[in-house]
């Protein structure tokens, strides 16, 4: 990567962040709601990207973890009267622990077993949300979930709350950026690319896979604690299996294993339905077919296509340079 390329990238990142801050200022309530939802779903998808993209494990329970986080936030802030930050801590610890316990038996056997165990867990979690009335108020749901005060600022109005979500997304992104460049992140990639080799290099593959899954689940919990004050009302329905499938599609469409994959995937899954209103009910059908076609063409999603294109150009440029150098050598006296 050349120096100009690096500056270009930084400039691009600053423009995008500035646009995310400035452009929504005159958005209406609904537009801000959708954008906040994008930020929340991106956090959940980033967690799943850690599990799927970096550690190579399919989890079908990310929606359930979002649900656990949302219920933790809703119950603690309404009935307990506690601040959201306390709920955040509980959600992270709870989701991490459940992820660890779930992954343990599944990863002991075969890689695709985690998909089945998490599928079962997703349904179990939904049953608990629906049936344990004393805790979750069952199908009636929990309403009047308060929005938090952040550093003395009330986030009751849509715009401040959007900034709260965006800020949280920023913090999570920085943490993730650091994580995947740490030795842990490199170990995650190693065990996706070649588990046997990773094992022979002294990486405890099972522990690292478990760690990736548990951390990914904890991020699902983080997204949940933002989701509850965003909608201010939760019931079990949004946290069924289809949320887990949606999140999985987001990661796949954006590009699993790419840092910005979840941002793009969540943008497509959350914003595109708003623009494609004219397709009415056919939207999800078209989306499913498009995902299948994308997967056939590029299993690493849209960013995978971009990556392939850039690599190709770079190798072409490199071989052109080599040809020039060679011809110079030959023509030299």
């Amino acid at each position, binding site marked *: 990567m050349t120096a100009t390329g690096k500056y270009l990238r930084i400039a691009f990142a600053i423009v995008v962040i500035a646009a995310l801050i400035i452009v929504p200022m005159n958005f209406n309530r609904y537009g801000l709601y959708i954008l906040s939802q994008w930020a929340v779903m991106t956090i959940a998808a980033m967690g799943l990207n850690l599990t799927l993209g970096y550690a*190579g494990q*399919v989890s079908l329970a990310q929606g359930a973890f979002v649900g656990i986080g949302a219920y933790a936030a809703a119950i603690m802030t309404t009935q307990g009267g506690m601040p959201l930050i306390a709920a955040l801590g509980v959600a992270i610890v709870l989701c991490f622990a459940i992820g660890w316990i779930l992954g343990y*038996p*599944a990863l*002991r*056997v*075969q*890689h*695709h*077993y985690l*998909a*089945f*165990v998490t*599928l*079962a*867990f997703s*349904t*179990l979690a939904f*049953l608990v949300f*629906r*049936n344990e009335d004393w805790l979750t108020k069952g199908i009636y749901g929990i309403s009047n979930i308060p929005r938090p005060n952040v550093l003395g600022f009330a986030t009751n109005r849509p715009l401040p709350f959007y900034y709260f979500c965006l800020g949280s997304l920023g913090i999570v992104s920085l943490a993730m950026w650091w994580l995947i460049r740490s030795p842990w992140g490199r170990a995650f990639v190693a065990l996706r690319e070649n588990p*046997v080799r990773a094992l022979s290099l002294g990486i405890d593959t099972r522990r690292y896979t478990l760690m990736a899954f548990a951390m990914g689940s904890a991020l699902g919990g983080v997204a949940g604690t933002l989701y509850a004050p965003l909608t201010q009302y939760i019931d079990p329905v949004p946290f069924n*299996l*289809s949320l887990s*499938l949606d999140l*999985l*599609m987001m990661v*796949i469409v954006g590009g699993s294993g790419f840092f910005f994959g979840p941002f793009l995937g969540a943008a497509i899954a959350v914003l595109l339905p708003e623009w494609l209103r004219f397709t009415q*009910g*056919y939207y*999800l*059908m078209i*989306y*499913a*077919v498009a*995902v*299948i076609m994308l*997967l*056939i063409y590029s*299993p690493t999603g849209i960013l995978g296509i971009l990556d392939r294109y850039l690599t190709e150009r770079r190798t072409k440029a490199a071989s052109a340079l080599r040809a020039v150098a060679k011809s110079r050598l030959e023509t030299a006296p």
Partner: protein
Amino acid sequence: MSNLLDLLVAGLATGAIYAIVAVGFTLLWQTSQTINFAQGEFVMLPAFLMLAVMHAGAPFWLAIIAGILLSMLLLGLGFKLLLVDPMLRHGVLPLAIATMALAIGIKEAVKQFFSAEASPFPSIVPAGDVSVFGRLVSLQSLGVLALAIAAVIGLTLLLNRTSIGHQMQATAQNPTVARIIGVPVERMILLTFLINAFLVALASLLITPIYLAKFSSGEVLGQAAFIAAIVGGFNQVRGAIAGGLLIGVVDNLSAAYVSTQYRAAVPLVLLIVIILFRPQGLLGRPEERTV
């Protein structure tokens, strides 16, 4: 106690249907490493195909035949050529994820083109009760059980007693060697997909009169089939059969004796326990870890 016989018969009847679906699921896994997350939707769709043919004015028997043939064309040949063949080179997980997208696609298509409401579906077994050992048992349960058992026996005979069945097993166990000794591996794989499509169409025909035709019913069916396949043994046809029957009975008994709210949880807990203590399934053989 008087209730127990009814529950057992009803459980075995639904269990036999789960078994059929689970057998198809394991066949696909064995011959082409396809974990079909759309298997439940595959069971849901043929009933709607049959209903569509009936709406066009055809009698029920003709609709059944047309539904089975359409299902073999779409869910057998079409599924293999359009989704599995191009995806297989990307590996097991991308293919599994593609089938999840397919599940969403099928569900939404049925919701849009047919109806979001549950539609009644005629039964091929007449309603009524018969007397067995002095007790009345639902004729529908017995009929479903008989048909499902016939299908399972037919399939077992096909796999174990015929030359085609042996070739299919050879393909499943070791495609390279099978190809060397002259088995037309490609044709055998296609045959497995067609058999799976036939099995899901049959299961659809048997289960839809009980649960009604609804676009979302695939989720429950698919989950029951996965659980049956894993509990019984992912790599064994007889394991899938045993798993299906077990899940059917457990499901019905837990509805009566545990609680209706948590009836769906019992098979899931069973799944987790099996994965913990006997990951190869009750009748499965342990799979060597692939490198």
